[in-house]
């Protein structure tokens, strides 16, 4: 079955609202990463966060291993935050040498 599930599939917010993106996984975790994909294609790494909480500006990533979930919080969203957010994990055992990606959350921030 699918190891990584992201929710929601899409999210539309007004500028200034906060966004909460979820990533749930069904396997023991070695690493967890969050990426941002600009409209038009290229991926940019946001966080490497296998456990705990990390902050970067308006972004916060929290990974709770026991609950098998990771979240990405965007505070005071801006129109430039629009795009697709992808989580990816490397499992602890089989397949540990590669990342498995979720299908992403498409975020649209309206002015």
């Amino acid at each position, binding site marked *: 079955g699918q190891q990584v599930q992201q929710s929601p599939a899409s999210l539309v917010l007004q500028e200034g609202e906060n966004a909460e993106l979820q990533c749930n996984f069904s396997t023991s975790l*070695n*690493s*967890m*990463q969050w*990426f941002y994909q600009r409209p038009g*294609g*290229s*991926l*940019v*790494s946001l966080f*490497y966060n296998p456990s705990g909480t990390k902050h970067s500006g308006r972004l916060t990533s929290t990974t709770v291993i026991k609950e098998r979930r990771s979240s990405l919080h965007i505070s005071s969203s801006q129109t430039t935050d629009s795009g697709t957010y*992808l989580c*990816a*994990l*490397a499992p602890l055992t089989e397949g*540990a*040498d*590669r*990342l498995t*990606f*979720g*299908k*992403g959350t498409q975020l649209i921030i309206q002015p």
Partner: protein
Amino acid sequence: EAAVTQSPRNKVTVTGGNVTLSCRQTNSHNYMYWYRQDTGHGLRLIHYSYGAGNLQIGDVPDGYKATRTTQEDFFLLLELASPSQTSLYFCASSDELGGNQDTQYFGPGTRLLVL
């Protein structure tokens, strides 16, 4: 910051055609990856490499060959292209294996259309 470049950025070919996608990274990373991205499937790993001369099979390798000629250069080969290989292809590199202790750095992508 890590630099990964891909060429060509766009490619159109016909069914049965021969296509080579190129990827170069200039950060002395050991590991390089080829992914394809399709609506409804997300990013899927085709092939990856631990270093020059090494090749590992990914999750969707059928119809693809790859070759790592140097530490910097990783090529993806489609010898008999089919319309099902129409996709957005990404190359990535990392210093550590998979996602362990390091992130992967992605190239800008190559859009391939097989008619």
